[in-house]
């Protein structure tokens, strides 16, 4: 069965969506991520959607569900890399993704997770001292 890979980086999970997802693939990702958060004791989840050409209400709902479930499981989810045309369309569609944290790119997303977990801003990629 087709699946979207979930990578582990420290106590974070990293997902890069590279394909045009059909609905079942999106649902599978949601289920897989929820299980992996618990199994890997993850504290952060970063979802890179920079390759996604559209986010419709189904994919939007999947992102909102993942954010809500990870919060219940004490992990912070950040969605990064949304294309401007996708953002414009989402808002017009009526989907503002409440409860979903977003960041411009992976680096800023990791920094956001770091701050949410009360760590120093090192993850920002700034100069190490």
């Amino acid at each position, binding site marked *: 069965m087709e699946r979207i890979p979930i990578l582990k980086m420290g106590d974070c999970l990293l997902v890069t969506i590279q394909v*045009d*997802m*059909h*609905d*079942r693939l999106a649902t599978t990702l949601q289920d897989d991520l929820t299980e992996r958060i618990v199994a890997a004791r993850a504290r952060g989840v970063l979802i890179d959607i920079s390759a996604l*050409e*559209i*986010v*419709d*209400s*189904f994919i*939007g*709902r999947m992102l909102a569900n993942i954010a809500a479930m990870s919060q219940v499981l004490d992990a912070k989810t950040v969605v990064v890399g949304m*294309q*401007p*045309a*996708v953002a*414009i*369309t989402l808002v*017009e*569609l*009526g*989907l503002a993704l409440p409860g979903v944290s977003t960041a411009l790119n992976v680096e800023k997303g990791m920094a956001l997770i770091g701050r949410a977990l009360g760590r120093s801003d090192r993850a920002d990629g700034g100069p190490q001292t």
Partner: protein
Amino acid sequence: MAVLRRDSRPVRGDQDIVAVRQLVREWAVSMGFSLVDQTKIVTAASELARNVIVYGGGGTLALEALNDGNRRGLRLAFEDRGPGIPDVDAALRDGFTTGNGLGLGLGGAKRLCNEFDITSRPGEGTRVVITRWR
């Protein structure tokens, strides 16, 4: 108003939603739509294709490239022979759903297009036609 090009395809399962998105994208690109306009009509098509499958039990999509004087348009007609929608006005309201979705499909698709037309007869099916002009 002239129809420059015409095509149709079945809309039956999950994979067809992806195929519809790709087909509509191809047409929008070949007609010279901007990236934002492409994204809008592809997203609207995705919502309506899902409605055809989830509520209509499958159906068809007909595409038309239109030429109306100095503007060009992409018209998509989604048709199913499902149970129909008893109250179309209610179905167009955000948040209204008889399934387990968000209830944004119809109203959202309407907002993403320039023209929107829906006809539904209980017991016979539903036809939604959207057009985006450039």
